[in-house]
């Protein structure tokens, strides 16, 4: 089903063709307005042997932008491959649309996290919605059925008026798009910090499932094969989004135009998903690529470059929403819900029939050739003729200057361990309540209630459990566990350690759920790469993550970099978000986080040191960020993970909850409130930092477990065997009994629950003022 439109408003005299470009080498071109440097422009001329046409200039400007070319990050990201631990589970890795991990002989999963930060500040609902749409299509392009989403979010200060605008819009957008696609939301985070006030971080993760033999790839192989565009009509969405491309032409006014906001249509995406899956099942496509940032230009060049082939594209065949679009606009459009298919000619009819069945537009727009050249014509006139690899693979690569921030030694010297701290039981009690009610630690139900967690019927665990758990096979009950984590305060203090701590936390969350961690994805959110301090943070974080993954033996399978995140002139805290995927042989054996049986013995496993720098306590109580983050010990994390699994296999565990922000105090609060059972615990006499230190330290490598009464000795024996320190704390109390820290304080669960669950509704539950 294709739509032929009369070209309107195109003046043939002014169409900038390849022929004209060859004839007018000295025509001035607005490459700077499009974000290209002079040396980059000269390189383009060198590659082409002439000046670029208007269309080609647009294509290079967007493909060579930071977002598409990764020009500032490539030299550092290579560490992920250089240091990659070997894995026989990896069916597709870095460079593909998403990493693919084998789970059984028949089944594989694919997962990835991506960012959609800047659009979410401009238009929170649509920015977040299209962010979900984009990552879902990446997963779909691997041949997988998308089956779950997660969303790590960062927004400004909780009490700042603009934060409500951003957060309510983002949450509604994620729910609006994800729920309508039928994707359960199984986890994520929300962090409030002033550094994100002018630049929220909306990272979206998607998990997909596929039979091992249905894995798709993006290579446009087979000269003679057809290039088919399937999905929504193409309009002016996002023009200007990825580079600075203006839609009205390259004049003064255009430079001030804002990019058209991309608007998502989850209904079209749902149809697209079903149509694509049907095509994959029937083996009707040779290659597939989703259209994301840089739209058609990116899809055409990446697929051709991947195969080393060329293409002949008749651009007027692209179905348009707005008939007056010029060739360079069609090439740059970021209209949503579109996929590119490579189809053998004998299969075209069948492909179009499937598209029609689902009501999805689909049009053959060109053919694969053996010329190695991407040639785009507009009603017969060549408007682009270039080597696709020059767009997709051979973009600029920068080794940006790197310099450790001058303030870092001072910052690190300003340790939180010396800050005034609570000493009496009453003060400790007040601190526990205050932290539990603080925006970063309080109950997230107000947010998570806006997401469907049940659709597709395979969600075994979702928020607030440590990891989202999805069952992949109803018969065998094999499944996966996923967690995404990050702590930008730790990373600000020490990017290398901070990145490793993010990895450790996600690893730990997966491990305490009872799963075996096997793969990693990441979204690296940083400030401007033109700032040497930011580049230093980036280089250190990547190094930390790459070395950490090597040590843990789990490879990075793919991820995303987002630069230029800043509030005014101030870069955000460096925010590497790490997602870890684990395998559960039997999802019925996953370990829940909450106390559930009075009388169970409560034990803290792992070592506690007095580590308060970068902690939630220091931030909430003193507005303080300084010192060094908690030490990271990946070998200890591995021992903890092995211990948990062994204890679970021996039936020694009723629950396990990892410790992170807020330390032991917060873990106790969450474990009690989960099912409404109190606890009576006593802190060790020799606790590092005394009772306060023991409760609020954020030492890594720890978990809070509950063990059925009578089995604690066997559990202790396991701790010895796996060389994990353990500290018995007390017992789970009855339903609605208080949380008691012997000799210090007692908190009624009702009071605790009120403090913990009132914060977000109080801040954000005004009836939204914008009609749907």
């Amino acid at each position, binding site marked *: 089903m294709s739509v032929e439109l009369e070209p309107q408003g195109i003046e043939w005299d002014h169409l900038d063709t390849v022929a004209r470009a060859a004839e007018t080498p000295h025509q001035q071109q607005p490459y700077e307005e499009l974000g290209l440097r002079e040396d980059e422009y000269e390189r383009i001329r060198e590659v082409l042997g002439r000046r670029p046409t208007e269309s080609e200039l647009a294509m290079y400007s967007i493909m060579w932008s930071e977002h598409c070319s990764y020009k500032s990050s490539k030299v550092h990201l290579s560490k992920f491959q250089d240091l990659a631990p070997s894995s026989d589970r990896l069916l597709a890795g870095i460079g593909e649309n998403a990493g693919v991990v084998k789970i059984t002989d028949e089944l594989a999963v694919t997962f990835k996290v991506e960012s959609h930060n800047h659009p979410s500040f401009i238009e929170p609902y649509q920015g977040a919605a299209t962010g979900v749409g984009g990552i879902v299509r990446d997963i779909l392009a691997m041949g997988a059925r998308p089956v779950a989403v997660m969303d790590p979010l960062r927004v400004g200060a909780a009490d700042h008026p603009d934060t409500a605008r951003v957060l309510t819009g983002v949450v509604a957008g994620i729910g609006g798009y994800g729920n309508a696609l039928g994707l359960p939301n199984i986890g994520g985070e929300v962090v409030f910090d002033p550094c994100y006030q002018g630049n929220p971080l909306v990272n979206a993760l998607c998990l997909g499932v596929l039979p091992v033999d249905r894995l798709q790839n993006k290579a446009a192989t087979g000269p003679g094969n057809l290039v088919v565009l399937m999905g929504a009509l193409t309009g002016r969405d996002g023009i200007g989004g990825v580079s600075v491309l203006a839609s009205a032409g390259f004049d003064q006014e255009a430079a001030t135009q804002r990019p058209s906001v991309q608007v998502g249509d989850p209904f079209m995406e749902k149809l697209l998903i079903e149509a694509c899956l049907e095509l994959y099942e029937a083996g009707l496509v040779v290659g597939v690529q989703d259209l994301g940032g840089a739209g058609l230009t990116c899809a055409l060049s990446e697929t051709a470059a991947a195969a080393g082939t060329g293409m002949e594209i008749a651009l007027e065949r692209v179905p348009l929403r707005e008939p007056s679009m010029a060739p360079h606009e069609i090439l740059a459009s970021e209209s949503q819900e579109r996929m590119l298919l490579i189809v053998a000619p004998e299969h075209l009819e069948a492909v179009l029939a499937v598209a029609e069945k689902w009501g999805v537009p689909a049009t053959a727009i060109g053919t694969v050739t053996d010329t190695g050249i991407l040639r785009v014509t507009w009603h017969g006139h060549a408007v682009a003729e270039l080597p696709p690899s020059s767009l997709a693979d051979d973009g600029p690569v920068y080794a940006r200057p790197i310099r450790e921030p001058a303030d870092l030694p001072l910052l690190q010297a300003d340790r939180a361990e010396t800050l005034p701290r609570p000493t009496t039981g009453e003060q400790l009690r007040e601190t526990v309540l205050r932290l539990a009610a603080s925006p970063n630690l309080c109950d997230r139900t107000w947010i998570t209630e806006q997401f469907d967690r049940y659709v597709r019927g395979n969600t075994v665990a979702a928020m607030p459990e440590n990891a989202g758990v999805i069952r992949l096979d109803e018969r065998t009950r094999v499944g996966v566990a996923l967690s995404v984590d990050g702590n930008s305060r730790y990373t600000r203090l020490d990017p290398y350690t901070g990145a490793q701590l993010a990895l450790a936390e996600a690893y730990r969350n997966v491990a305490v759920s009872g799963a075996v961690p096997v793969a990693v994805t990441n979204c690296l959110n940083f400030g401007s790469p033109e700032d040497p301090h930011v580049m230093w943070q980036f280089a250190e974080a990547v190094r930390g993550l790459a070395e950490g993954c090597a040590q843990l033996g789990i490879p990075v399978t793919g991820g995303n970099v987002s630069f230029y995140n800043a509030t005014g002139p101030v870069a955000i805290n460096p925010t590497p978000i790490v997602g870890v995927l684990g395998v559960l042989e039997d999802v019925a054996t996953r370990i829940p986080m909450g106390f559930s049986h009075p009388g169970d013995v409560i034990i803290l496993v792992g070592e506690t040191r007095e580590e308060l720098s970068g902690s939630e306590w220091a931030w909430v109580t003193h507005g303080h960020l300084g010192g060094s983050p908690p030490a990271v010990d990946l070998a200890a994390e591995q021992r903890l993970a092995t211990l948990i699994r062994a204890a679970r296999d021996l039936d020694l565990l009723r629950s396990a909850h990892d410790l992170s922000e807020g330390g032991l105090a917060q873990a106790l609060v969450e474990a009690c409130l989960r099912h409404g059972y109190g606890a009576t615990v006593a802190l060790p006499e020799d606790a590092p930092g005394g009772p306060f230190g023991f409760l609020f330290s954020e030492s890594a490598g720890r978990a809070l477990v509950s063990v059925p009464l009578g089995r604690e000795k066997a559990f202790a024996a396991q701790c010895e065997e796996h060389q994990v320190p353990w500290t018995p704390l007390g017992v789970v109390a009855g339903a609605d009994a208080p949380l008691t820290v012997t000799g210090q304080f007692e908190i009624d669960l009702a009071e605790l629950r009120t403090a913990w669950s009132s914060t977000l509704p109080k801040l954000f539950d*005004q*009836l*939204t*003022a914008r*009609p*749907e």
Partner: protein
Amino acid sequence: MARVVVDVMLKPEILDPQGQAVANALPRLGVTGVTSVRIGRRIELEFTEPPEPETVRQLADRLLANPVIEDYTVSFVSDEEPAGEPA
């Protein structure tokens, strides 16, 4: 070409929480003296030939509006008049 505009509003007795939310927001923008806000839907149809009024009425009744909870009005707009200026 003939344009038909169907305006759909919730029946007066139906609670309109969206309208209420907008009403609540007005004072924040310095606007007082608004006693009620109700939000509806405007549907514009372009016919190649002017349609029978009864056809449009039935279309409105069966699809464009839900008569259980909504009222509607139909306007026939001539070619020359724009049906509404873009903001």
